[in-house]
């Protein structure tokens, strides 16, 4: 029983990371119909920038702020400079370009920072928590991870639902042509959407890297699992991405705990394949794809 509880808590904690990556992919997908394969690589890069700042100043939170800010900037620059060139072109162009970005950013990180694994500090203690003498499978840092991701998701939900900029962002995502006719500066909204996604990705990078170490391709697996989370949620739904991340985290945690830790990534890929084959619009879809 305690074991089950621990696996569940560990799974939810890992799932928060997948949820954050998934959420950032959904943001980008809804706005620009691009699946950003470089999302993980961008988060890896911002984590390196954070590590530089942390090592230079000894201040974790300064590094944290630098990661989020550079995530915003990198997201915006990537949209303006690279993605803008392929909007309105065949979808394959965007796929190729974003894979190119992934390779480019990982190569650049290798050149600048070297390719060896670096350890990365957590925000809070990574000693296991316990209730009385019963050890739980989570740490204060896991609690922080959950709070940070849920808070970010909550802030995004409120901004999108209740603010004018959120209304503009949604209108741009659903119908850019109509939004333009109503005076919405669609280009700016797309840049903003990518910037926000970059920020979320950077947050995920800061949260996951203490447990993976940091190297130019340390985010690759996390990206695939985050993508799986988004697909489980249907790729259109922010709430679905969060739910998808948590479900995936728990399932993978059971697989690793009860079966074998070697099979975790295999299970992740299998989950992705199964969802794409059986429920391509996501586990929670009821209606067929959106009406236009």
């Amino acid at each position, binding site marked *: 029983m305690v074991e089950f509880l621990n696996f569940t808590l560990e799974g939810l904690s890992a799932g928060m990371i997948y949820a954050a990556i998934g959420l950032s992919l959904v943001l980008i997908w809804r706005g620009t119909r691009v699946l950003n394969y470089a999302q993980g690589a961008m988060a890896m890069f911002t984590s390196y920038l954070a590590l530089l700042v942390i090592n230079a100043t000894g201040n974790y939170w300064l590094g944290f702020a630098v990661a989020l800010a550079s995530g915003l900037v990198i997201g915006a620059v990537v949209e303006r400079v690279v993605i803008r060139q392929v909007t309105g072109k065949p979808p394959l162009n965007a796929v190729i370009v974003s894979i190119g970005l992934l390779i480019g950013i990982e190569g650049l990180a290798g050149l600048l920072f070297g390719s060896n694994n670096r350890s990365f500090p957590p925000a809070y203690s990574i000693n296991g928590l316990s209730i009385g003498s019963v050890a739980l499978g989570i740490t204060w840092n896991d609690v922080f991870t959950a709070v940070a991701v849920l808070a970010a998701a909550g802030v995004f939900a409120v901004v999108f639902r209740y603010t004018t900029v959120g209304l503009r962002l949604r209108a741009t995502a659903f*119908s850019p042509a109509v939004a333009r*006719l109503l005076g919405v500066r669609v280009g700016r909204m797309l840049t903003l959407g990518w910037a926000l996604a970059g920020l979320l990705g950077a947050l995920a990078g800061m949260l996951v890297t203490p447990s993976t170490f940091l190297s130019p391709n340390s985010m690759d697996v996390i990206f695939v699992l985050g993508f799986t989370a988004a697909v489980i949620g249907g790729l259109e739904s922010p709430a679905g991405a969060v739910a998808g991340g948590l479900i995936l985290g728990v399932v993978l945690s059971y697989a690793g705990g009860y079966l074998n830790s070697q099979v975790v990534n295999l299970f992740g890929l299998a989950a992705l394949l199964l969802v794409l084959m059986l429920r391509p619009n996501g586990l929670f879809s009821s209606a067929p794809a959106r009406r236009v």
Partner: protein
Amino acid sequence: MVEPVRDSATLVIEDLVAGYGAVQVLRGVSVTAPAGTITAVLGANGAGKTTLLRAIDGSVRPRRGRIRLSGADVAGRRPEEVARAGIAHVPEGQGVITELTVAENLQLGLLLRPRADRKAALAEIYRRFAILADRRNRAAGTLSGGERQMLVIARALATAPRVLLLDEPSLGLAPKVVSNVLELIKGLRDEAGLTIVLVEQNARSALAIADTGIVLNLGAVVASAPAAALAADDALRRHYLGF
């Protein structure tokens, strides 16, 4: 209708040339839509009516010519900037954002107004369009065709436009709904003094409410006259208008 438009404007189009790729659709169209009037744009399918509106609103970039609204030339500006200059385009078919609620569709239009004016403007729209007030919290995708047409017109009005471009507002609507829409358009001119450019296949009903009209054929203006004169011209009606 929302409130009288004080600085209603005359839209002057001079020698407009536009098209898609190698296809030239408009071949030097000139038309003036006087402030506070309805100008009907008539003609057969493919005459260039919709392209004319799309060139005015910036969705199609004009290759030549001027589009002047109170002196400023908006030709070549992007659609969002043309909208901000006060030209609202109600495109043909379903221009509602189906995923947003009725209220959110309207609020999107209101964003072009100063923040302080929005609440009153929305209340006024709901007063005028009672059916939209009843359905305000429903997804716009659940509305009927007639209700959607009301919503897109109401949303265009929410932007506080000086010029309203309407593309086939009666297309696909039941006859009773069509007369409601036409009454509404007439009211926008009479009560609010809006400048309206009305594209219609249904020439008879368009000329019944318009002040002036032009007839397009193959991208050129073949007639430009007061609405009554166009309606009375038997040869023109038979050749181009089909009634």
